[in-house]
């Protein structure tokens, strides 16, 4: 009798666990469909590059030609320079501004939220219609220099940088930190530099990674203003030399993946920030 009463509970709990963990067939089906759809282009890119040579060689074969191409080197270097400039200008502009708004002007936060969705309302292809003639009249000196791209990309990166910094500042007790620093005789700029910045490290790195990803991949404005950045090189390689173009595309794929992986490892929840990219 005792044995009989003792056995049902484990059996029941076992059955419950099994019922819970049974995954409906259609869930598996959709996951497989998604995996096939996502992996097919990646598989094809690798496979496609094998077909260009006899005997077949790996995709890395094409990178010899690509890496030796001076056009590749100059365009890639230019894009890296522009990305770093974009991150620099963006941080210099945004960190003090968002810090100041959180500290002294919280009333402006709805305004900032509104401004940070403006780059979605005015996508790159639309903005450049108004910006190109305006900048040409504003400063011809600036207009012909590649640095102008960095200044424009700061606007495209604004929503991501703002959201990242905003979330970072929300997570710390800013007022208390600043007042504590003040009581020890620290000036506001020094507090920002030595107390707030270390606390915002994750937000700053996250925003910067997204900014780099945007600046490295931006095609619309660079092409319409006539600067030879990495995406433009990819475009030309793809339209003139099919295999090299595909190999370079694979390289950009790895780059974006690296940036997103870093972001994911950094935040775990940071993937939501990676969500809405500005579409070019």
């Amino acid at each position, binding site marked *: 009798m005792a044995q009989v009463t003792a056995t049902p509970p484990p059996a029941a709990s076992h059955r419950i666990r099994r019922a819970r963990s049974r995954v409906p067939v259609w869930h598996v089906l959709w996951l497989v469909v998604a995996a096939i759809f996502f992996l097919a282009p*990646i598989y094809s890119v690798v496979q496609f590059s094998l077909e260009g040579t006899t005997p077949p060689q790996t995709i890395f074969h094409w990178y010899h030609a690509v890496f030796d191409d001076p056009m590749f080197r100059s365009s890639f270097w230019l894009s890296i320079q522009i990305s770093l400039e974009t991150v620099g200008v963006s941080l210099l502009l945004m960190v003090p501004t968002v810090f100041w708004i959180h500290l002294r002007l919280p009333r402006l936060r709805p305004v900032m939220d509104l401004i940070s969705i403006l780059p979605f309302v005015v996508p790159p292809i639309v903005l450049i219609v108004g910006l190109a003639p305006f900048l040409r009249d504003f400063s011809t000196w600036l207009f012909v220099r590649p640095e102008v791209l960095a200044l424009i990309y700061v*606007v495209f990166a604004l929503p991501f940088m703002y959201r990242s910094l905003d979330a970072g500042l929300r997570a710390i007790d800013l007022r208390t930190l600043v007042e504590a620093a003040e009581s020890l005789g620290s000036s506001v700029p020094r507090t920002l530099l030595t107390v707030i910045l270390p606390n915002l490290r994750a937000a700053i790195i996250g925003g910067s990674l997204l900014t780099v990803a945007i600046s490295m991949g931006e095609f619309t404005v660079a092409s319409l203003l006539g600067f030879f950045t990495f995406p433009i090189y990819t475009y030309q390689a793809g339209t003139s030399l099919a295999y090299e173009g595909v190999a370079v595309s694979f390289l950009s794929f790895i780059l974006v993946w690296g940036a997103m992986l870093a972001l994911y490892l950094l935040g775990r929840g940071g993937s939501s920030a990676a*969500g809405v990219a500005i579409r070019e």
Partner: protein
Amino acid sequence: MALAELTDSGLAGNVLAGSAPPKRRRARRWAFLGVLPFAAYIAIFLLIPTGELIVNAFRTPSGAFTLHNIDDIFHAPFPSSFVFSLELSAMSALWGGILGFLVANAVLHHGIPRWVRPAYLSFSGMAANFAGVPLAFAFTATLGSLGVVTGLLKHAGFDIYPAFSLQALMGASLVYLFFQFPLMILLMIPVIEGLRKEWREAASNLGASSFAYWRYVGLPVITPSLLGLMVLLFGNAFSAYATADALGISNLVTIQIAQFINGNNVYDPQDAYALAFGMIVIIIITITIYTLLQRRTSRWLK
């Protein structure tokens, strides 16, 4: 770092807050100066150019007021490119929305192995941002006339060419789907997670099947959100330029605008302003719909 520890006592802040009110009030009057550099930057690189663009849409080259530019949007070849832009955006948003919802729901199922979720999420973060020129070339290598998958299908007896084309609605939607679909997965996950566990438990206690739960509880609650996110995807596809250009699509609004700026302009350059203005109007409409739907959802979800 030592300062951060100090504030844990919670004392310093309270004592100091009351110590210097006159100074604080004077400081507040000048506080706005701190945002001036940012305001100037946004004015120069975003607000003034956008304003000029809108004003120029209603101006002749000499500066007089006119509705001629706006009227031009409604004459060939522009209406057909607006139609194709809208069709392509709607198609990719619809499929991206449905598939994204299904996959997000599957990923969140508690029976799925643990590694699946981070794998799909990190890949989605990547794919949602992998757009533009490389995406177009990747799909040319996949489903172009000499593509790898095209070859596999041909081998299996399905020759998709010449009926299929990456420049037509179906083909281009598939390419756009590569960033729309994962974007929807990322945006949909917090929405599904927001559905209260008690509702599902209550439904299953009353004997409802999983299907009945979704039909009568889950979907009605989630629908505004689902539609709202699809509207967001629509706007996302509508502004796409680089992907379409590298694919070789010519009858999209964004491509037509670019042709004016590139210098090989065939028509009145004032039309670029009018087209850009038309795009802004459509995007504002989509964002308004999105906001309204989002507000409806927030009544129910956590």
